[in-house]
C-alpha cells in the first residue's frame, strides 16, 4: 500500500517528522564538516569524543537539577573544552589526558543517570540521539548553532589554518594564536551541545570526522576539502534517513554508516583514478 492511499491526517505528521529529522541532521552535518576538517588535520578526534562524553555528564546534571539538559550539556562541553586546552604532552601524552577527562565524564554521567529513578532516561538516546523526535524548536536551535559555527569557521579560517600548518610560524609572525584556539574549542563544544541531544554522542563525533575523511581524496586545497566535507556531511543525512525508512533500522547509526559508505566511495574512486593515470 502506497503512502498516497493513507488519509491526509496520517500523512502530514509522518512527512513532518521525517522532514525535520532530515533537515536537522543535514544542517548539523553541513556545519560539522568544515570545523571537522581541523579536527582531522590537527589529529583531535579524541578531543571531540571527550567533549561529547563530558556533554553526557552535562545532560545528566541538567536533568538532576531540573534545568534544560541542553544548558547542562553546553556548560559542561565548554568547561571540558577549556580544561582540555590546557593539556600538553608532559608525563602522559596530551591525548591520554584528554581521553581520561572524557571517560571520567562519561562514567560520572552514567552513574548520575542510573541514580535518577524519577527521570526515565534512555541512555541509548544520548549515545545515538533521537533524530526522529526533533521539534520545530530543535530545528531552529540547530540552524542557529550551525550558522554560528560556520560563521566562526569563516572568520577564524586563516588563523586556524596558519596554526594547523605550523604553530610556531603562526605565533612567531603574528600574535593571535591563543584566542583563536579557544574559539575553536568553544565552537566544537557548541556543536556537540546541540548535536548530543538530537543526534547523540556517537553521531556528532562521526559527523566531525568521517565527512572530512571522505572529502580528502576529492580536494587539492584546504578550502575545497571544507566545502566537500560540508556537502558530504549534509548528504549523509538524507541517505541514512532513506536507509532507515526502507530497512527499518535506527536512524542515527544509519546516517553514520551512510557517511562511511561515502568515504569508501571517494577513497576507492581516487585509487581507481590514480591506477588509470599510472597505467597510461
Amino acid at each position, binding site marked *: 500500500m502506497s503512502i498516497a492511499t493513507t488519509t491526509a491526517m496520517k500523512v502530514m505528521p509522518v512527512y513532518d517528522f521525517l522532514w525535520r529529522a532530515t533537515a536537522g541532521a543535514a544542517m548539523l552535518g553541513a556545519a560539522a564538516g568544515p570545523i571537522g576538517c581541523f579536527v*582531522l*588535520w590537527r589529529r583531535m578526534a579524541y578531543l571531540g569524543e571527550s567533549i561529547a562524553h563530558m556533554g553526557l555528564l552535562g545532560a545528566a546534571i541538567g536533568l538532576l537539577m531540573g534545568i534544560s539538559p541542553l544548558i547542562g550539556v553546553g556548560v559542561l562541553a565548554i568547561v571540558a573544552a577549556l580544561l582540555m586546552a590546557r593539556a600538553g604532552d608532559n608525563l602522559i601524552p596530551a591525548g591520554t589526558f584528554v581521553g581520561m577527562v572524557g571517560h571520567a565524564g562519561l562514567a560520572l554521567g552514567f552513574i548520575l543517570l542510573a541514580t535518577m529513578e524519577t527521570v526515565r532516561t534512555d541512555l541509548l538516546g544520548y549515545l545515538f540521539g533521537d533524530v526522529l523526535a526533533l521539534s520545530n524548536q530543535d530545528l531552529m536551535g540547530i540552524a542557529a548553532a550551525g550558522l554560528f559555527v560556520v560563521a566562526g569557521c569563516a572568520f577564524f579560517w*586563516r588563523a586556524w*589554518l*596558519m596554526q*594547523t*600548518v*605550523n604553530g*610556531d*610560524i603562526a*605565533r*612567531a*609572525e603574528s*600574535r593571535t594564536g591563543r584566542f583563536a584556539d579557544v574559539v575553536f574549542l568553544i565552537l566544537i563544544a557548541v556543536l556537540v551541545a546541540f548535536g548530543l541531544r538530537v543526534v547523540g554522542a556517537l553521531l556528532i563525533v562521526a559527523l566531525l570526522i568521517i565527512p572530512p575523511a571522505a572529502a*580528502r581524496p576529492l*580536494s*587539492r*586545497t*584546504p578550502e*575545497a*576539502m571544507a566545502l566537500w566535507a560540508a556537502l558530504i556531511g549534509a548528504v549523509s543525512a538524507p541517505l541514512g534517513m532513506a536507509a532507515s525508512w526502507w530497512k527499518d533500522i535506527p536512524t542515527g547509526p544509519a546516517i553514520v554508516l551512510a557517511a562511511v559508505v561515502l568515504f569508501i566511495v571517494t577513497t576507492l574512486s581516487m585509487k581507481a583514478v590514480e591506477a588509470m593515470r599510472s597505467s597510461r
Partner: protein
Amino acid sequence: MLTMPNELLISAKHLGFRVGGRDILKDIGFEVRKGEIVTLIGPNGSGKTSLLKALLGLVPATGEIARKPGLRIGYVPQNFPRDMSLPLTVGRFTRLFADRGAADAALARAGIATLRESQIARLSGGELARVLLARAIAGHPELLILDEPLAGVDVAGEAALYHLIAEIRDEIGCGVVLVSHDLHVVMAQADRVVCLNGHVCCEGRAEQVVSDPAFAQLFGPRVAGELALYVHRHDHSHEGHARV
C-alpha cells in the same frame, strides 16, 4: 665595511631560559641590526634554537627583549612536520602568509615558481627548504630568523641556498639570524658569528671567532685549526676576485 651602525631590529639583554631547573640560556646579550647576517653556532644542546624561540616569544624567557616597533619577521623553523591529510599546494601555503603577488614573486625569487601547484606533503627535503625560505621572505620581512634552513639540502644545494640568503639580504635589506651546523658554509657568509654554549662564548667576525681560545675549547683545536685555515683561504679568494 659600514662606518655608521645600522638600525637596531631586535636586542636582548640578560636573557635567560630555564627548563626543569636547568639553565638552557643564561645572561645572553644579543642584537641584530638591519642588513647584517648573524650566524649562531654551537654544539648540540647549546641553546641555539632556544635563543631563536626566546627572541620570537615562543618560549617564556627572562630578561629584556626589545624589538623595533611593528617589526616584520620571517621565520623558518627547525622542524616542519607535514601531514598528508591536509591538502595544501605550495602556492596556497605561501599565500596564506602574503598576498598573491608577493607570494608568486617570492617563489620565483627562490627559483621554485614551477612548484606552485605541487602538494607540500610530497616535496623533497631540498624543495621544502626553498619553499620555507620563499614563504618567509614573501611577507617582506625586516628580520629573517632561520633555524637550520639547510636541513635536507644536499651539499651543492647548500652553497646555492646560502648564496640566495645573502642575495635576499642585499635586495630587501633585512637582518638575518641563522643557525647552522655546517661551520664551513656559515663562516663564509656571516657578517658576525656568535658562538653559543648556554652563554655567549665568543662573537665577532668569522676570522676573529675561529682564533678565539673559547672557540677552540668548544669545538676542539682540530676543528678550530681547520676553520681558521678555511676562513683565511676564503678571504684570500675574495680579495683576488676584487682585484681582477
